[in-house]
């Protein structure tokens, strides 16, 4: 297992290095002058020259890459051109919205989708099972933004249980934050929990039709224990991969929902930075999200290997 860990860890470092190269060179060395691009058509020669110096455009691209990496490693993401504040400050603010939101939505989809899937697997071809499957179909097919607007209409405007948007900030305390993130999280999790429930239902049914499940029953293991110890443990491996993918997509993919609820998240930051041609911010945020996705993938692989001895062996 330790060997497996180091193997994966080294490959994590490689992917990070590779991703940083790709991100850097796509945004930095594409045709055209980045400084002129960022400043727009009306910029004077002097301002462009000043920005070029700030961006180290006067040295070679390779050298610039190492300057960038070096400052990233010390936590310096550079200075945003449009906001004139350090990029890290911008990101820090947004992270405390985006991460909790992603986590919140993920927890909702696990705690609702997982039991639903387990239930649906067991009451296959009954009324309850059909209802669950039908709801799942709906969840997969309803567009996120429409569902979000529907939630706002019902729970904010009609019932006024939750705020319709905005983010109070963590200084206001835990509960108001949770309250303001609740509707966005529900909107984000609806389609994801449906996918999750479908995967759980399918892989659990698959596992329950396997011979080892029958063997467990033949030993006199009660059905509930057989499902928990034998079927679920086998069914959970594809599930972990799905969860990893979902978390990654939630981090940066919540732009639409962030816009509907006026949340200052990472998705909106990237969107604004792109429209304002602030390449420094774009680069920083994209690198950070890539880092998060690679780390999540690493964790997914480790937990799959911890569960399945055959995966460990294949790498060794």
């Amino acid at each position, binding site marked *: 297992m*330790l*060997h497996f860990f180091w193997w994966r860890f080294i490959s994590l470092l490689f992917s990070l290095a590779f991703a940083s190269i790709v991100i850097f060179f796509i945004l930095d060395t594409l045709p055209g002058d980045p400084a002129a691009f960022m400043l727009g058509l009306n910029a004077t020669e002097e301002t462009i020259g000043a920005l070029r110096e700030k961006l180290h455009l006067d040295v070679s691209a390779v050298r610039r890459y190492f300057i960038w990496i070096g400052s990233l490693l010390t936590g310096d993401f550079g200075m945003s051109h449009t906001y004139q504040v350090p990029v890290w400050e911008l990101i820090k603010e947004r992270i405390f919205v985006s991460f909790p939101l992603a986590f919140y939505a993920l927890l909702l989809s696990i705690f609702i989708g997982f039991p639903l899937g387990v239930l649906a697997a067991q009451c296959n071809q009954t009324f309850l099972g059909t209802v669950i499957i039908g709801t799942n179909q709906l969840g997969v097919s309803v567009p996120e933004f429409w569902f979000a607007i529907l939630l706002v209409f019902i729970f904010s405007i009609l019932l006024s249980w939750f705020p319709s948007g905005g983010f109070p900030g963590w200084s206001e305390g835990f509960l108001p934050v949770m309250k303001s993130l609740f509707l966005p999280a529900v909107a984000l999790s609806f389609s994801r929990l449906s996918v999750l429930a479908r995967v759980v239902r399918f892989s659990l049914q698959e596992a329950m039709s*396997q*011979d*080892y499940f*029958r*063997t*467990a*029953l*033949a*030993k*006199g*293991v*009660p*059905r509930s*224990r057989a499902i928990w*110890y*034998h079927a679920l*443990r*086998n069914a959970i491996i594809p599930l972990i991969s799905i969860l990893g993918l979902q978390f990654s997509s939630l981090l940066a993919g919540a732009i639409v929902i962030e816009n509907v609820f006026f949340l200052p998240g990472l998705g909106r930051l990237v969107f604004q930075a792109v429209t304002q041609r602030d390449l420094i911010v774009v680069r920083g945020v994209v690198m950070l999200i890539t880092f998060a996705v690679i780390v999540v993938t690493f964790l997914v692989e480790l937990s799959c290997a911890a*569960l*399945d*001895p*055959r995966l460990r*062996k294949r790498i*060794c």
Partner: protein
Amino acid sequence: MSLSVEHFSLSIGKKMILQDISFSVSPGEVVVLVGESGCGKSMTALAIMRLLSEACVETGRIILDGNDLCRCRDPELFRIRGRDISMIFQEPMTALNPLMTIGNQVAEALLVHCQASHIDALHIACKTLAEVGFQGASDFLGRYPHELSGGQRQRVCMAMAIALCPRFLLADEPTTALDAVSRLHICKHLRALSVEQGVGILLITHDLGFASAMSSDQVLILRTDGILESGTKQSLSMFMHHDCVSVSADFPASFRSSLPPDPSLPPVLEVRDAVCEYVSFPSSSLFPFFAVKDVSFSIRKGEIVALVGESGCGKSTLMRAILGLETLSAGSVRFDGAPIDLSRRKVQAVFQDPYDSFNPRHRVDRLVSEPLFLLDRDRSLCSAERAILVEEMLELVGLSASDSRKYIHEFSGGQRQRISIARALILRPLLIVLDEATSALDVRSRSHILSLLSRLSSHFSMAYLLVSHDLSLVSEVADRVLVMKAGRLVEEGTTAQLFAQPSHPYTRDLLDAMRSLDRG
């Protein structure tokens, strides 16, 4: 105090599986249930365990201690299963949970039934594993099923079934995956269970040597139409005799190539100093485990060579290495002087399990014609030519041309094995590797398959490499025998010479085990 099945009928959809069968098993008694594959033997056992799928419609009663199991509710059944009645399943490869150590899987029955502590349960599990023939059982407790060979897994299944000393044991083909020595061991152990501990055993088998060796008191023969006939040991020998006659009639004396292969011909297959080593972590690379060590042999055109050895000795690894499915750590494998990558179409394989070696979503014509993609591009066939070739192959192996549009689940085990052979033959290879190709079949299908192979061998002068632990089969079929133990070839010789004068003590053990099983 006995287990009895009374007027039990079972059907799935419109198909009648069992018709009004009745029998009983008393404590200490061994009842043998024989029948062709697909006649419903396993369904009988599953019905007693109450593990049938919901699609089955049943009538009749299954009585244990005056209780009708058909009417028992789940909690009662959980108490009965494993403690009063337990079962050894047929497929050792899939019957174990791949994510649990075997120690935990054996201990689970004890945890569930006796509220034993985990340590105690593991302790008993270790003892049970030793009982079923694991030497150094404590080393095995922490292993996972994929680290064991088929025979070892079968013994784990057996340990699971007997860990709680049940009163009745349903053994569904407990020895199909085992070599002669382990078979004898399991046989002795089952007999000891019934004699010393008074366990009533229902033994389902198509291995008639094993059935008669169990010196059973009562023999049941299940016909293909689902009707049960009962008899005594004599009727078993008659049933056996009937099959033996058909087997020997199907084996012409010329099964073996009539002329010894010309030694001057270049070999079809040449294996030289093959080594397969597994380095396991965390134990260091100082002690690598050699699955195959320094194996060299060759096979000439039209020759039938058998590779025998106990389960876990490296037979399957060697076979996989020959097929290029496993990389060799050292040494070489050559077909007609070329490595496997260049001669893929000169060698084909028929695998042990006729159930798992087909894609269930493809029709037979696609399954059988699949190897054709190995042909050179300029020789590739149009779809009409393919269809004709597939039909020809199906007819050659004794199926009909109309079968080509069916799916694989519509066939029985024996028919599927024929389809495997058709798939292997379609390229007219020089060598076919048969990995226990007949062990999952009943006597009758086995004899059909063997005579088919013999006809094909003389027809196309193909060579076979027969991986088997069935020595009686080997003695009838093979020209030459290779004996393998712990990854090395320990003896090699012509069949007659090796069976008459085995020189290695291990070969002698194997032969003794086979003979004592045959004598019963």
